[in-house]
């Protein structure tokens, strides 16, 4: 049987690279004693595959990997919860198991669906560092009003232009804490740029779904301004958190869309350094009949 594990990554561990996270989970699985399946051959390895890598310095509530167990089916109804508990017992501070889901059995003669191949969307949170709230909020307002904003992205052969704006489906702004259904609440169509209640959102149609659960581990400064982005993700059109961040930084630094497209970096005297916000991944989604559902809903 196959399972999908959702975990959160916080604190110091935001400086662990993707390969080290994979190694960490191999060791953690061995410590937890869950019956992982191994590949054949002289150097067997655990059968597991990770979804989207996370950039260094980002925290996340939506990290995923799939793995195969060496048993045919779950021995009990709450087996997934037991696995989650065993895994959590093997975690160090900063890694938290959010859920374990048993994946449905594959239809005969179909290809294996990994988490990576299913990803269609992502939700990111961007928190300006103190001193950069105003310029970045202004930049966000400009960005929201654009039809398209292209950035050159390094690809395997040369660079190619990515339309960041087109890949963003919804933008939300909050001050302080926000409700779990923030992007789905009734106010979301009202333009209310930094109003008294600190809520701002852009009028656009967000398709069905895009739910998220805030993790109890997330930390933010009291009353901090935060931007929420629902974006395209996955192999076809991946709008990473850094792409959005770059777009905002370019706009805030006065780099025009055109010069931005030339890949010109804003000069440092523009006052907006590269590190002007922290980035966080809230969730990864897959497209289920037109609805964006969490990758953990299989």
């Amino acid at each position, binding site marked *: 049987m196959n399972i999908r594990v959702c975990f959160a990554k916080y604190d*110091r*561990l935001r*400086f662990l690279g993707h*390969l080290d996270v994979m190694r*960490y989970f191999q060791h953690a699985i*061995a410590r937890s004693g869950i019956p992982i399946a191994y590949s054949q051959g002289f150097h067997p390895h655990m059968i597991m595959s990770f979804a989207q890598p996370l950039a260094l310095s980002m925290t996340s509530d939506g990290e995923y990997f799939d793995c195969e167990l060496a048993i045919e089916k779950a021995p009990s109804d709450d087996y997934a919860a037991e696995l989650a508990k065993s895994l959590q017992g093997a975690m160090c501070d900063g890694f938290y198991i959010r859920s374990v889901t048993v994946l449905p059995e594959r239809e005969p003669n179909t290809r294996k669906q990994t988490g990576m191949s299913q990803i269609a969307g992502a939700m990111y949170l961007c928190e300006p560092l103190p001193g950069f709230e105003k310029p970045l909020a202004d930049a966000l307002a400009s960005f929201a009003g654009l039809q398209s904003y292209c950035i050159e992205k390094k690809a395997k052969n040369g660079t190619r232009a990515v339309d960041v704006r087109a890949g963003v489906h919804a933008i939300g702004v909050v001050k302080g804490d926000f409700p779990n259904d923030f992007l789905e609440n009734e106010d979301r169509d009202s333009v209310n740029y930094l109003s008294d209640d600190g809520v701002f959102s852009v009028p656009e149609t967000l398709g069905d779904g895009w739910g998220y659960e805030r993790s109890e581990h997330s930390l933010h400064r009291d009353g901090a301004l935060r931007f929420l982005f629902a974006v395209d993700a996955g192999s076809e059109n991946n709008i990473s958190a850094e792409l959005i961040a770059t777009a905002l930084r370019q706009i805030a630094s006065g780099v025009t869309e055109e010069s931005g497209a030339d890949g010109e970096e804003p000069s440092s005297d523009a006052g907006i350094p590269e590190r002007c916000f*922290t980035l966080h991944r809230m969730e990864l989604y897959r497209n289920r009949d037109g609805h964006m559902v969490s990758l953990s809903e299989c």
Partner: protein
Amino acid sequence: MRNQLALSDDILLRVEKPARYIGGEINMVVKDPDKVDIRFAMCFPDVYEVGMSHLGIQILYDLFNRREDTYCERVYSPWVDLDKIMREEHIPLFTLETQSPVKNFDFLGITLQYEMCYTNVLQILDLAGIPLHSEDRTEEDPIVIGGGPCSYNPEPIADFFDFFYIGEGEKVYDDILDLYKANRADGGTRRDFLRKVSHIEGMYVPSLYRVEYNEDGTIRSFEPIYEDVPAKIRKQVVKDLDTCVYPDKQLLPFLRVIQDRVVLELQRGCTRGCRFCQAGMIYRPNRERSVGHLLDMAKNLLDTSGQDEMNLSSLSSSDFSGLQELVYAMIDECRERHVSLSLPSLRIDAFAVDVMQKVQDVNKSSITFAPEAGTQRMRNVINKGLTDEDILSGAGKAFAAGWNKVKLYFMLGLPTEGDDDVKGIAELGNAIAAEYYKLPKDQRHGRVNVTISTSYFIAKPFTPFQWMPMITKEHFLQNQRLLKATVNEQLNAKSLEYHWHDAETSEMEGIFARGDRKIGPAIEEAYRRGCIYDAWVEHFHYDIWKEVLDRHGITVEFYNLRERGKDEILPWDHIDIGVTKKFLYREYEKAQRAEITPNCMKQCSGCGAAAFGCGICKQPRGKEEMV
């Protein structure tokens, strides 16, 4: 603890591998620093991936943290990129656990595993904001302790340490920490503490000794300044490894480190008595752990780490008496857990071939021999109890089992070496290749590949070769060329490959290894001029070192190329490792006559280590006639 990193996100994103600096690894100890009496910073003065591979730190980390009143944290050398940033931005050196400045600690313990780390020691002190010289430190500074193999001749770096712990850490560290607390409670100063520490056996406080030199630069006298300070400092030895503490959890780094595996220490010391080998002398007597204890330890380590590789560590695994029993029991345990087992320093015989077939991939792995010298005469000089027959029959068995890659390790520049001994290396390589071609053609797997590596012999303190001259760098390079040419002349030249080690680092290592206190100022100047990470070829600046040594009158002739006299006071004579100078000299004379000395397991040669009353020395064996 959350988000409290000593470095800003900005810096962490600018440096290579930021995970080196964040701590938080599996099995890291978490304590409240405000609730302990003693804060101990434990340092390996090299980059994280090297330092985290070291078992000794794991043992001491566990040992200290078992004490409720002590919090031991780790610190490693910032890599050159971060080093630069820390200097520019005045960021003080910090520990990984609490990310707090090392300067605020009670102790800074630095392990000295190789001579080429000396400038890194100064880097650590400097970045921490601790005065480099012991004499300049105040009550605000941590007490700086040195330990590890280089502390057996710590004279070149004596000025930079408050004291050295000579021997195995498990023995008297508790006494030291208790003494520290008592001294503080009595309102005692740093100087008071150091004076009292010198009364604990094995503790060497360099500032309490006076050295005088003869005109030729040799030592005239080396004496304690005060009567209550012992003239000889005796190495500390753990008598029973089964009852001494061993970490049941080892720290598991996130990064892939050099030794990416859990380590099971089978034994300490070695019974062989190779005459070039310092470890073989300073860790005497040989002491084994029991197989039952080792199996428990192994299980525990695997449970708590989840590691997929385990290393059986020892200076000479084949000499471990319970090896077969242990290995066969472990093979099954490891297979079940999908853990691979590595057994370095294994002598290749029928048992080894059987084990290797079970734990290694025949197609990918190679077999390794360390004959160290190319001719039997030369191997007798160095007392390496390995014959051509051993090597050829071992290789033959491995070839028959399917191996076709062999690695051979040798030293060039050994005492009494002649051209024939150099050529003998190539000839031995050739003979091994020939052994492979004795196999019927249908049993061979392609061509055999024999790799010959040579390093530059360095005479080390506390070995029978401590009096011996080393050869010049030029002579060494000439030997390399001779060997290269001889390799090419061999019948099986196409199956032989030759690699060599750089000579410049080794020359410097020779000077440090047998150096005295006169070298300290040169090390300091080299550091001031930018030398750090000397052990890393790409960061080693031979030109700067050469200039600095010249300026300080430190010559290769005096430290490396000179034969020392029998009665000369050696810079490390005040350290007592149990093995006597008399025994070492007897071995030195036997070496010159190419006479061998039997392994401790066969008979006792009266080296002096029996005084510790433990290990192999307590077992009944034959006795060599005393000379």
